[in-house]
């Protein structure tokens, strides 16, 4: 009699184990894809936000160039809307939330400097929240004085209020926030643009 050749297949446990290993590999690749997608989304969003910030800077410049500020050194670096009486820039905001109503609607009535500044900020913020059309759940922006360029978060603009240079800060919360690993990306959902004085 021939010796019987042992010819057993894999046991269920073995198969399950190997499937588990393979699928965990698959999941890892999938996760990697998701992260890469989130990163590219983040990049697109960041680019759009930089464009928005740049647009505001240009509007401020356009305003600034038509204004002759006082000749003393203390006014150097101050931005348009500079009020000879209030000694402050009308572009500095305190609200970190959505647009505050402008003091005057410059599209229907004529405006002075501070009214124009308020109107520019209002239309800019309104556009940011209604027209930016980016995959984000929430957005916050502020123009403030900040000498150290503090990184803003959703809850705190992190402006120290000192110095004369203005900074535009925009922070947003992506829809796929949970997908983005906190370690990898949560630090990247903001733009800061310093507004150089003249």
């Amino acid at each position, binding site marked *: 009699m021939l010796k019987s050749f042992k010819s057993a297949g894999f046991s269920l446990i073995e198969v399950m184990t190997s499937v588990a290993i393979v699928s965990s590999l698959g999941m890892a690749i999938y996760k990697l894809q998701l992260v890469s997608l989130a990163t590219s989304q983040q990049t697109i969003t960041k680019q759009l936000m930089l*464009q928005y910030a740049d647009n505001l800077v240009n509007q401020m410049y356009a305003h600034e160039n038509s204004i002759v500020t006082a000749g003393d050194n203390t006014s150097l670096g101050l931005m348009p809307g500079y009020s000879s009486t209030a000694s402050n820039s009308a572009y500095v905001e305190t609200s970190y939330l959505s647009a505050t109503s402008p003091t005057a609607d410059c599209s229907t009535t004529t405006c002075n*400097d501070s009214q124009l500044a308020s109107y520019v900020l209002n239309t800019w913020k309104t556009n940011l929240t209604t027209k930016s059309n980016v995959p984000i759940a929430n957005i916050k922006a502020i123009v403030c004085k900040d000498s150290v360029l503090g990184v803003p978060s959703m809850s705190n603009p992190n402006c120290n209020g000192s110095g004369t240079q203005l900074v535009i800060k925009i922070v947003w919360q992506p829809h796929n926030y949970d997908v983005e690993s906190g370690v990898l990306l949560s630090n990247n959902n903001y733009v800061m643009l310093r507004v150089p004085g003249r």
Partner: protein
Amino acid sequence: MKKNSGFNLIELMIALTIAAGVLALITSSFSQLYNTFIFNNKVLNINQDLRLTMQLLKNDVNNAGIFGSFSFHNESAASSYAVSSVTTPSCTNSAWCNFESNGVGVKSFTSDVDSIIPSGYPALASNSEILRIQYGGNKVAYLDPRDRNGSGCNTSYRCTIDKCSTSPLRSLNWAYFINSGIESNASSYMLTSANRAYLLKFANSSVFTTGDANLLVGDLLLNFPTSSGCPIAGGVSLKIESSIAGTAPTYNYTAYDPDMFSLQLVNFYTRYYFVLASNANYAAGLYVRTLQSSGSLSAPMLVSSNVNKLTLSYIVDNATSLNKTLNDQAGRFAYCSSANMSSSGNTRCYNQWNKIIAVNLNLVGSGSSSSMSNDQIFESMTETVGWR
């Protein structure tokens, strides 16, 4: 002996069902991932296109109203600077004659006022506007003072200022531009000085080929009117300050125009940007037409097919002069749409083209993602150009 059977049908079915479920999950998940990737790509594509287009528009708007050393920005409100009086052989081209010295080189229309959409082309896209930009380009020739250090100026050697003559007519007579590649049949040059901009339209090349022995072929000779105000026959004549002000040249060599020596010849650009809808022959998108050296506009060229709306608005500064005491002046600034600027009932904005301090450009682009039919992509981009 060990029983060596395979899976039975039930086991196989269960295994297949589970596998199919898992596969379906993975497939749908990957397909979603892929769709999102395509969608993102499309968004990025439209965005890049809008950015490039915006850059093009911004560059042109930045240049608007600048002619060599003369800028209409902040100056055009002063009527003494807005001189465009020049006797040219002819001015028959509408694009050429449309130059306006009482603006800053930027104007926009809500309808085709200048008739720049040729027949056969689609109509202006819905709610879109036409942008017209005018500015001077590179210098093409410099003024040659032709000073002979006091030696005689005569009929064969004419000096810009004839210091040798005792004639009361000796002053502003001629301006020579040394040939540096002036296109003799070109019709789009601008003569600019520190304070003025003059249109020049050369209907024929004869103005470049005078009989003056000291001129090379292609040099430009301009005749200034005589003290009696008469242009010299056969040439291009030009009035400069002293003549316009009625001050006749005098003996003591001082009656020259200070603008004179800053004169330079530059190319003159007129460009129209407009967004068309589509028809059977032409795609929808942003088109541009440019004034050519022949004096006619180029055929519309497609700049971007992703742009489907162009609108403009302006910040108008009503301050009469630049003065720090005017800060916070009430009623100084106005936001005006193109429609406001051309609406005679709008006292804030109507025809304030010379008081624009900033131009807001808005481009809208849209499209859909091929992989997700219900995914409409809509992008709006606004940029502001303020002159520095």
